[in-house]
C-alpha cells in the first residue's frame, strides 16, 4: 500500500453557537492511499457532504486537520483536487468545451492551450462532437460528463464526488458508473465518492467507509474484495450481496435511532 494521499485526522465539525450547536462530524480519521476509490455512505444528514467540503477546503474543521498530498488543507487546492457535485453546476452561458476549460481560465492558461486540454477531456468522457453545445442543450447524463471532464482537466490527484449521479435516472446512472470506472482505470485518480446508494458504493469502490447518523462517526470501513473490472453480473453475486448486507445493517440501525 502506498502512502496516504488524503488524510483526515481527528476531524470534528460543529455548526452554530454554543447554545444550539450541532455536531455534524465527530473525530473522523481516515487515510486514503494514492489511487484508491473510496465510497462514503451513511444515513441522510450524517455529514458525508460536509466531510467532502472539508477535504475540498471549502470550510475549515472545528477540530482536527485534513491533509492532501502532505499539505494541510486550509483553502481549495485547484491543482490537486477536482470536485463534482450532485447538480452538474455548469456555467449555463458557456459551451461544453468552455465549461471544461473554466478551471484553466481561472489560472490564466492561454486560450489555445486550455481548449486543447478541454477537448481531450471531453473525448475521455465520451463527449467528442458536443464541444459547442450549451448546457441546456445537453441531457442530464451528458451534463454530468462535462462536469467530470471539468474535474479532471487540471489533472488533479484527487477527485471528490458529492452524489454525482443522484439526480439521474437508473439507467444513465449505471452507464455513467461504468464510464467512471473506465476513466478511473485510465487516470488512476484517488476518488472520494459520496453516495446514498449501497449498490453504487459496492459496485464502484475499493473500500466503503460507513458513517453513523449525526454526529457522524466512522462505524465501519469495508474493503470491497470484488475483482476488477467490475461487471453488472457481479451485482447479483453472493459476495456483492454480503458486502451490501454488512453496510445496510449499520445504516438501518442508525436510521432507527
Amino acid at each position, binding site marked *: 500500500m502506498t502512502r496516504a494521499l488524503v488524510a483526515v485526522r481527528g476531524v470534528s465539525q460543529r455548526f452554530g453557537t454554543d447554545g444550539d450547536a450541532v455536531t455534524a462530524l465527530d473525530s473522523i480519521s481516515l487515510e486514503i492511499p494514492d489511487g484508491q476509490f473510496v465510497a462514503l455512505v451513511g444515513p441522510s444528514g450524517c455529514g458525508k457532504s460536509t466531510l467532502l467540503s472539508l477535504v475540498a477546503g471549502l470550510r475549515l474543521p472545528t477540530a482536527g486537520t485534513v491533509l492532501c498530498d502532505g499539505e494541510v488543507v486550509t483553502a481549495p487546492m*485547484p491543482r490537486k483536487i477536482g*470536485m463534482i*457535485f450532485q447538480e452538474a453546476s455548469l*456555467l449555463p*452561458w458557456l459551451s461544453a468545451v468552455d465549461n471544461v476549460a473554466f478551471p484553466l481560465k*481561472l489560472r490564466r492558461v492561454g486560450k489555445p492551450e486550455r481548449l486543447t486540454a478541454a477537448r481531450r477531456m471531453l473525448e475521455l468522457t465520451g463527449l467528442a462532437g458536443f464541444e459547442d453545445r450549451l448546457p441546456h442543450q445537453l441531457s442530464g447524463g451528458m451534463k454530468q460528463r462535462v462536469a467530470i471532464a471539468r474535474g479532471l482537466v487540471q489533472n488533479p490527484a484527487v477527485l471528490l464526488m458529492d452524489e454525482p449521479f443522484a439526480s439521474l435516472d437508473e439507467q444513465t446512472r449505471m452507464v455513467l458508473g461504468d464510464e467512471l470506472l473506465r476513466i478511473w482505470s485510465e487516470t488512476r485518480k484517488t476518488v472520494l465518492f459520496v453516495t446514498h446508494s449501497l449498490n453504487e458504493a459496492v459496485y464502484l469502490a475499493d473500500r466503503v467507509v460507513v458513517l453513523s447518523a449525526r454526529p457522524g462517526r466512522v462505524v465501519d470501513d469495508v474493503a470491497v474484495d470484488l475483482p476488477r473490472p467490475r461487471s453488472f453480473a457481479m451485482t447479483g453475486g453472493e459476495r456483492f450481496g454480503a458486502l451490501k448486507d454488512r453496510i445496510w445493517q449499520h445504516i438501518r440501525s442508525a436510521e432507527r435511532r
Partner: protein
Amino acid sequence: MRRHERVIVAAAILGLLALWEALARTGRIDASLAPAPSTVLDALIRLAGRPEVRESLAVTAWEVLAAFLIALPTGLLLGFLLAELPVLGALLRPLINFLFGVPKSIFLPVFILVFGVSIPQKIAFGVFTTAFVLIMGGIAAVQSVPPELVTVSRVYGASRAQIIREIYLPAMAPILLESARLAMVFNITAVLLCEIYGARDGIGYRIAAWGENVQMSQLYAALVIVAAGAVAVNEALRAVETRLGGWRSRT
C-alpha cells in the same frame, strides 16, 4: 415573429387605420376628438419641420438621457448593496417597498419646491422614479446568481474578483438588461409627466399646451413621435438583452 405573422400584424394595423380614416371622413366619429390618420400625418410632418418642436424634443431627450445615466449606476449599486448586506437590506427594504408601491407623482410638488420648474427638476424626478425599478432589478439580479456556481468557482481557485467577473456579471446580465429596459420606460414616463405637470420647454410641455387648446391632431402627432422614440430605445435595449441572454432560452 415569423414572416407571415408580420404580414398579418401589418395588415391588421393598416386595416384599422383605414377603418378609422373612413369613419372620420364620413363623420361617424367626431373628427375633433379623433382626427383622421391622414390629418394626424399631416400635423406630424408640419410639427417635424418646426424648429421649436425639434428643440423641445432635444430638451426632453437630454432630460431622459441624463436621468437614466444617473439612475442606472445609483439604482443598481443600491440594489447590490441591499442584496449583499443583510443588515442594510433589513433596514431599508420596508422603506423601499413602501415607496415602490406609491405613485411617484405625489412627490412632484416636493421636486418643484427644491429645484424649481427647471430641467434639473425633471432629471431629478426621472432619477427618483427610475431608481426604484433599478434597485429592485439589482436585488433580483444578485439573487438570481446560482450559489452552486460560486462554490464551483471557489473549488477551482477563483479569486473574489474572478467570481464577480466570471460568475456574477454573466449570470446577472439578462436581469440587469431587463431592468434597464423597464427602467427606461418608467424614466420616459416620469420626465413627460413632469413636463406636462409644469415646464417651460420639452415635448411634454407642448403636449400639455396642445391638449388645453384641443389641438387634437398635434396631440396625436406628438404621441406618435414620443411612442416611436420610446419603442426605438426599448427595442435597442431588447436586442442587446437577447444577444447577451441567449443562453437562458430553453429551446
